[in-house]
């Protein structure tokens, strides 16, 4: 069985971090598993950790009154779920649901925030990685807003 250190070392989100930095993060991390249909978190709850997805698929759901639940994004192995842990007031904005069997490493937010405060270079490295996730999600949402696959009335 792989150690937490090995799991984090080989995850793309932590690529480029040196061994000692990763071992510092291990103190904030734990292995978690979710069965299909189980929720990693719900909208409005405290964003007290984030999830480094190692295997499986997570759907980000939102309840639309009158229309039921809709999936607005999915996160697969190699990606991370959640950035609300980094931005006050630290509350989840969506639900996160395991679509398949999910194995992940949960990183305690308060523990990590403390380490980031104590070590600005770690804070910067984490911010760079989270910013990249946010950038991709924002671009994805913007392009989908254009509804490119919708029909133009032409002929």
């Amino acid at each position, binding site marked *: 069985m792989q150690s937490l250190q090995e799991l984090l070392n080989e995850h793309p989100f932590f690529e480029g971090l040196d061994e000692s930095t990763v071992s510092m993060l291990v103190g904030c991390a734990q292995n978690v598993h979710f069965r299909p249909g189980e929720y990693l978190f719900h909208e409005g709850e405290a964003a007290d950790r984030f999830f480094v997805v190692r295997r499986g*698929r997570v*759907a980000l*759901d939102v309840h639309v009154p009158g229309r*039921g*639940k*809709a*999936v*607005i*994004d*999915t996160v*697969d192995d*190699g990606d991370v779920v959640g950035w609300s842990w980094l931005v006050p007031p630290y509350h989840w904005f969506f639900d996160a*649901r395991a*679509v*398949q069997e999910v194995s992940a490493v949960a990183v305690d937010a308060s523990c990590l925030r403390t380490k980031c405060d104590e070590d600005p270079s770690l804070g910067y490295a984490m911010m760079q990685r989270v910013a990249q996730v946010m950038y*991709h999600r924002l*671009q*994805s949402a913007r*392009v*989908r807003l*254009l*509804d*490119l*696959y*919708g*029909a*133009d*009335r*032409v*002929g």
Partner: protein
Amino acid sequence: MSAEVTAPRPEVLRTDALVPRPFRVTETHRETYDTVTLELESLDGEGLAFAPGQFTMLGAFGIGEVPISISGNPARPDRLVHTIRDVGGVTRSLCEAQPGDVLTVRGPYGEGWGVSAAVGGDVVIVAGGIGLAPLRPAVLEVVEARRQYERVHVLYGARTADDVLFGVDLATWASDADVDVAVTVDRAPTSWPGRVGLVTDLIPRAAFDPARTLALVCGPELMMRYVAAELVDRGLPPERVRLSMERNMRCGVGLCGHCQLREFLICVDGPVFSLAEMLPLMGVREL
């Protein structure tokens, strides 16, 4: 003063190039709420040989004609297949055609995907929305000669799960032909077990050797721009990325100029171009 008239492109001046042939609808399949696939056979008994990526000018008597990509199997020239989205008067009429109805066909026209350039290497096919229809013949050609290719990826983005085209084909290619098929949709109900997100998100997950890969891309132009950028980021040379461009094609044979894209006429020089040819033009707003 003597003015020399430049001769039009000789290769498009076949005497029969503008003459429509009658084809009878033999079968219809409703793909989605606004998209229909028609199977047709010619009334003269001669099939219509085509290269994947080519199109015909498909017409309804008394209504008009429109350029429609061929979506059938290139190994079956006896059966012309078109997948049509209802986006206006002519396409609505075509979508409403029933078995026994006779339509007009001119073509096939244009330059195709040139799939054989991928033999011996990897193939990455990226489609968005109705863009899977012009790519279907290319996938069928690859699947038919699967052993001649290394890794084959079909990456497909659709608006919703209900808008996914050729669902049976996608499943068959994945299960029977060792093709890596990945589908993503823009939004979905919670019953959808697949991916939700952009088709570009599928590219980093596809394993291929950029130096030995041919990429074929078809979809809305903006989507193709983003996909092309992602493929080039992965190391594909622009010459090995092919795009199917769409403009207002009318004559189909390079005479009328409606589909001009600067120095190109889409109907005869394309519709398939390399990214190297299109890259300087794709960001020009006036085009």
